[in-house]
């Protein structure tokens, strides 16, 4: 399990780095989908098989495919890729890299501590907890999705 984790982590990091540096959005999205599949493997090695299945089915399979369809509807051409190339010229990255590195150094200090329990949490446990003690949160999530649906419907009309 441990070598699988490291391989999947390396794939996730590499494909994410490729995704944020592409000029063609479709290529970037496909790299990001690959990164999500690698994250699914990471979740599985961390003892969360239900989360791994959700990552592949819901995130990579539904949300990202929606994103991909919308980008294909935008029908971007070669001119867009050329323009994108000028937008991500090397000097653009200098200040963000410095800021992100400083932030990363600050955050990295949080990550040390005693080893934990580390066991596999089955889908059954997740479902039981989700639909008993966390039921209010499920209702709130449904309201969030309804708000998203109504908002998308309203904004998508001809003259909102």
């Amino acid at each position: 399990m441990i070598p699988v984790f490291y391989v999947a982590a390396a794939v996730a990091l590499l494909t994410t780095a490729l995704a944020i540096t592409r000029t063609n959005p479709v290529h970037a999205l496909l790299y990001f989908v690959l990164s999500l599949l690698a994250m699914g493997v990471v979740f599985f090695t961390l003892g969360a098989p239900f989360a791994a299945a959700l990552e592949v089915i819901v995130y990579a399979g539904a949300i990202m495919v929606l994103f991909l369809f919308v980008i294909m509807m935008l029908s971007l051409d070669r001119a867009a890729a050329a323009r994108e190339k000028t937008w991500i010229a090397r000097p653009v990255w200098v200040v963000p890299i410095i800021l992100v590195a400083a932030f990363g150094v600050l955050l990295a200090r949080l990550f040390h501590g005693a080893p934990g329990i580390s066991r596999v949490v089955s889908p059954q446990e997740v479902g039981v907890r989700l639909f008993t003690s966390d039921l209010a949160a499920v209702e709130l999530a449904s309201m969030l999705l309804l708000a998203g649906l109504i908002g998308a419907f309203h904004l998508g009309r001809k003259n909102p």
Partner: protein
Amino acid sequence: MIPWPMPAALALALFLLGLLGLLARKNLIFVLMSIEIMLNAAGLLFITAGMRWGNPDGQIMLIFVFNLAGAELALGLVLLLRLRARQPALNADDSNLLRDRP
């Protein structure tokens, strides 16, 4: 099992990559994608915490993170489609007035 600081470090690295994309890219498509990367990194940290404490709350929070990502992406993409009618380049720096140009 893997010691928990390893996946936590992976989550931090992915989050920082997403933040880098958010800060450096101008194209709104890539800005939306960077937000998705950051949300996903947060989800990985929830899973790591769930493993660390050995309870299902991490996976439950991941479900809510997916909910949020789905709702956010649906609205973001509709806004992107509408913005493109006005401004075909989708440059984030061009839409900073919150109204039409005078």
